[in-house]
């Protein structure tokens, strides 16, 4: 009899537990139903407004965690959340979180906008003429918010000197970067390099300078102190005058004595006063170029 009563009580308490569990499940289901699906934008572009659809009903807190901003906003479920243009300026991955009793999340990507500027790096700033593959440049397109544009775009590299086009070269960007190499021209002066992407241009200038001296020629005359020696105008092999400051080394051999003078080119010509009393042989060199030898007799 007592066993029967105990069993009946147990069944009753188990029934209560089951009822409570069922009620909790129902409440949970009601809470879950309030916070429905989160649908982020599929083609969001930097600096454009976008909207996120959130199903459900009631109040919730909306969070947006992006590469350049974090937002927290109280919202009503069932209404779209509009993202303002200034909230999506940084391209990248955005995480949207909605919290009511529980939290739901979803992520989406914001793509960069149209090209607005180009980072154009050119090397070197001064290049000797007639050198192979000495000039190089890298172009990277950015949108107005400084997001790197990763989708392929054709970059046109143009070279010009004295207003005359020397040629152009088109290459597509690969993951946001395009590059070129070029030889320097034959004439000293400025070389303009322009990178253009979808109508957006950026210009850089390379100063082409004379290359190494070529055909160094010297002449001299005896004076009271010894021999005054000077070069003809020093030019490179393309005929460009070498820049002032280029060093020419004069060497005078007077028997066993040697006198050496390093003289900088000034206004295209290098000059040196050599000390020599007797017969002397004077030579000149600049870089890897040797000039002619000058034989001057003693006392002449």
């Amino acid at each position, binding site marked *: 009899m007592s066993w029967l009563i105990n069993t009946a009580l147990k069944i009753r308490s188990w029934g209560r537990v089951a009822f409570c569990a069922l009620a909790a499940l129902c409440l949970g289901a009601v809470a879950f139903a309030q916070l429905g699906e989160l649908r982020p934008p599929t083609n969001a572009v930097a600096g454009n407004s976008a909207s996120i659809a959130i199903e459900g009903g009631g109040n919730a807190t909306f*969070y947006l965690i992006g590469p350049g*901003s*974090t937002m927290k906003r109280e919202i009503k479920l069932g209404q779209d959340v509009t993202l303002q243009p200034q909230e999506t300026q*940084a391209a*990248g991955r955005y995480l949207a979180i909605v919290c009511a009793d529980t*939290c739901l*999340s979803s992520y989406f990507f914001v793509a960069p906008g149209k090209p607005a500027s180009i980072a154009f790096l050119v090397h070197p700033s001064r290049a000797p003429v007639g050198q192979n593959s000495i000039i190089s440049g890298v172009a990277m397109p950015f949108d107005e918010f400084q997001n*790197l544009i990763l989708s392929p775009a054709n970059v046109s590299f143009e070279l010009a000197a004295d207003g005359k086009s020397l040629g152009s070269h088109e290459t597509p960007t690969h*993951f946001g970067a395009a590059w070129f*190499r070029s030889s320097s021209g034959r004439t000293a002066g400025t070389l303009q390099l322009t990178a253009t992407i979808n109508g957006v241009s950026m210009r850089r200038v390379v100063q082409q300078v004379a290359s190494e001296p070529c055909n160094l020629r010297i002449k001299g005359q005896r004076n009271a102190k010894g021999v005054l020696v000077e070069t003809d105008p020093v030019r490179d092999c393309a005929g460009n005058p070498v820049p002032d400051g280029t060093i020419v080394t004069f060497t005078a051999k007077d028997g066993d004595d040697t006198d050496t003078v390093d003289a900088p080119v000034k206004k295209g010509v290098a000059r040196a006063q050599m000390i020599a009393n007797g017969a002397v042989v004077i030579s000149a060199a600049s870089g890897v170029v040797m000039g002619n030898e000058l034989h001057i007799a003693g006392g002449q």
Partner: protein
Amino acid sequence: MRKISKLTRFRRAALLIAAALLAASFTFAADAAPEVQLNTSKAAPRAMESLTERAILRDYKFAWYNLGLAMESNSTAPLNALFVGSANKWLHDAVDSQRRNGLSSRYLNQTHKVDAVFYSPEGDVLELHDTAGYDLKVLDGSKMIHNEHVTVYYVVLMTPGADRWVVRDIQAVPQF
């Protein structure tokens, strides 16, 4: 005699606590340090010198460690001198807006598989593709509102600074 024994016990306890704290700090450091693998075999048009490779690895790892620190502590100080240009601006804005909204994020158990895909002819720009994995936790005050392990693909631009390589641009993309 009894007093000495108490003192010894106290010293032992203090030593044990100090050792435990030291061990905990090492464990924290080991957990917090991002694991970075760098592959430079695809770097073009310029091949990467081994010294540069080591510097990139060191500086990129340090940048991510400090990024995590900045996002967790809501302080922009760890970002200084490691991020420049738009990367610096975005991260400063992210930290500032997190702080304003009372949020913080944690980037835990970071792994980065990094490929150098573009190294400019003169060595002044480097583009990396980083397949990053980490546990991302977002907290509103002390309440955890998001916790998941994510894999994110980052395109990163680095340039040489005065004494290190700095991150100039960092952008997550759907895929490489």
